[in-house]
C-alpha cells in the first residue's frame, strides 16, 4: 500500500503542474481503490450499491494519515480518484463484454455486481469512448463528466479542482451530458 507521505508529495507535485505526478498517483491509488471496490461488491453489502464518494473517502483516509492536508489537496485527490474509478468500471465492463474469465471469487463478485449494476455494459463502453473523444476538443467538459459521473464529485468540488466557477461547471456538465447522450442514442444498441 502506498504511504501517506508519498501521496502527499505527489499531490503537491501535481498541483505544481508536474504531469508525471498524476500518472504515478493514479497507479498508486488504483490498487487500493480496486481492492476496496471488490470489498464493496462482495456480499457484505447486499444492496450491491457502490458509493463513489464513500469509496474514495475511505481510500483517502487510508492513504493519507497526514492531518495537515488542506481541502484543496483533498479535492485534487478526489479528482484523481475519479479517473481511477472510471478505469475500474470500464475495465470491468470490458472484461464482461469480452466474456473473459477472471477467476475465482472475484469473478463471481464482479459478475453479480455488473449484472445488477449495469445491464448496459455496452453503453458504458460507448460512453467511455465518446468521453475520450470529447476530451480531444473539450478537455474541461470531459473532465467535469469524469469527476462528477464516475467520481461522484459535487459541482463545488469540481469547480475547486478546475479553478472555474460553479456556474461554469454546471454549463460544462449540461453541454457534455447532452453531447454524450447524443452519441449514445446515435449508436445502435
Amino acid at each position, binding site marked *: 500500500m502506498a504511504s501517506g507521505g508519498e501521496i502527499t508529495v505527489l499531490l503537491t507535485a501535481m498541483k505544481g503542474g508536474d504531469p508525471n505526478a498524476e500518472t504515478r498517483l493514479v497507479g498508486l491509488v488504483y490498487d487500493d481503490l480496486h481492492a476496496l471496490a471488490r470489498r464493496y461488491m462482495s456480499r457484505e453489502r447486499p444492496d450491491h450499491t457502490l458509493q463513489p464518494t464513500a469509496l474514495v473517502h475511505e481510500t483517502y483516509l487510508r492513504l493519507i494519515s497526514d492531518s495537515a492536508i488542506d481541502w484543496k489537496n483533498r479535492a485534487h485527490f478526489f479528482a484523481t480518484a475519479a479517473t481511477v474509478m472510471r478505469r475500474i468500471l470500464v475495465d470491468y465492463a470490458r472484461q464482461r463484454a469480452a466474456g473473459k474469465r477472471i477467476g475465482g471469487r472475484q469473478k463471481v463478485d464482479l459478475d453479480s455486481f455488473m449484472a445488477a449494476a449495469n445491464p448496459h455494459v455496452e453503453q458504458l463502453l460507448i460512453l467511455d469512448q465518446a468521453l475520450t473523444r470529447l476530451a480531444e476538443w473539450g478537455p474541461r467538459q470531459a473532465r467535469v463528466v469524469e469527476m462528477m*459521473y464516475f467520481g461522484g464529485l459535487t459541482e463545488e468540488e469540481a469547480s475547486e479542482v478546475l479553478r472555474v466557477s460553479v456556474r461554469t461547471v454546471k454549463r460544462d456538465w*449540461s453541454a457534455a451530458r447532452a453531447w454524450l447522450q447524443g452519441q449514445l442514442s446515435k449508436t445502435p444498441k
Partner: protein
Amino acid sequence: MTPERWQRVLEVFHSACGQPPTQAEAFVRAQCGQDAEMCSDVLRMVGEHARGGMLDRSPWEATAATATATEPALDQPVFPPGQLVSGRYRIVRLLGRGGMGEVYQAEDLELKEMVALKTLLPAIASDGRMLARFKQEIQLSRKVSHPNVCRVFDLARHPADGSAPETTVFLTMEFLPGETLSARLHREGRLSAEAALPILSQTAEALDAAHRAGVIHRDFKPSNVMLVPAAGGTRAVVTDFGLARSCAPSGETTATLTGTLMGTLDYMAPELLAGGSATVASDVYAFGTVAYKMVTGVLPFAADAPLAGAILRSKGPAPSPKTLAPDLDEKWEQAILRALDPDPDRRFARPGHFIKALSGEAPGVSVALPKVTRRRLVAALAAVILLVGGYRYAVHGSWMCQYLVLRNQSGLRVLGDHEAGVEACIARQECWQPPVEGGVQQPVGAPFADACQLCQRNAEVVHGQRHGFAVEVSA
C-alpha cells in the same frame, strides 16, 4: 471536431437552452446558417438536454438499475422523432414527461395540423378499470368547449390494429406551443398583479365553463396552465381536466385510499384532506393557491413536504400574501384569503367571482374571521391517521416519489422528493431518510449511504405518491 468548432457548438447550445422551447430549433438554425452538420449536432444536444439518460444516474448505483430492467422504457422515449404512430400521426419531438406518460408534438397527417400526443404509462393502460375511468374522464372533459380549455380529441392505440404484443395507448389533444405557468414562475419568481391578472381571468373563465358543464378540475396547479403567445397578449389554457382522478390504481384498498388523496397536495383544499370529495369550492381553493403563488412566488403553506403543508393547511387560515408582497393591492389580498378560507362555504361561489372581486364588483368581499374549530382539526388528523393504518408500500420500478409518509415507533414522518436509491431502501422498509429541505434533492451520491446510516428498523411506509399518481399500497 476542433476545439474552435466545439466552442461555437457550446455557445449556440447554451443560448438555445435559454430560448423558449418552441423557438429553440429556429434559433439554432439561424445561428448555424449554412453549416448543416453543426446545426444537427446542436439540435441533437438540445433534444438530449430535455431528456433523461444514463448520465443522470451514478454508474455505481445498482439498485436503480435493477429496477430499470423491469421498466426499460423510462430512459428511452416510446416514439422516436419521425415515427408514424397509429398510421396517422407523425412524431415531431418529445415535449416532456408527466405523471401519466410522455407528451409529444406530432403532426396529424389526416387533418394536416399539429397535435399533442400523450402516451399513457403501461401501468395505467393495462389496468382495465383505470382505463375505463380514464375514458370516462375524457368524455367529461370533451363536454367543455372553451378557448381557455385544452381540447381533447381522442384516445387511440399504436399500432392501430393492436397487432403487436406491446400496444401503446395514447391521447391526442390540442397542441399548445408555449410554456407552463409553472415554468414561468420558476423563471421569474413572482409576477406583478398586472401580469398575473390576464392569466388568472382566463383560467377563471376556463374553470367556470367546466363547472357549468359539471366538470371539476381536481388538480388545478401552475403546471396545468399553458401560456401560449398570441396576438394581443398571452392565451392561458387549462389542461388535464379531471384526469387526476382516473390515475388512481385500482384495487380494493387502494381505491378508497387514493380516491381520498388524489391530485397535487400542494394545491389541495383542506376538506379534501379530511376525506371530502372534490367540488367547485375545492377548485376555488386551488385557484386561490395558484393566485397566491403567482403574486408572492411561494405557496401559502410552505413546508418541507407536501403532506406537512397539507396538515398545516387544515390547522388554520392562510397567512396574508401581503407579508411577502407588501405592495400588493388590498383587494388582491382579500380575494386570495377568501378563496383560501378553510371553510368551503365561505369561499367564492366560483373562480370568476375572484376576478370580479379584484375590480370591486362582487358583493361581500370582506374577509370573515377564519373559523378554526377543534373539530375540524381533529377531523383532518383523524383522516390522516386513518390513511396511515396498516398499509404497506410496494415499489415497481425506479420512480421518484413526490412524498412518502413513514411510521415507526417514534411516530410519523413525511418525506419529500428524493432519489430512487433512497426510495428502494425505504421500500424494503429498512430505513429512514432525513427530510429533504424544500423538496430539493440531495447531492448525487450522498443520500443512499446517509439514509442507510440513519436507518431505523421497522419504519413503515404508509402512503406515497409518485409523480401524478399514487403508488400501490396494499393492506
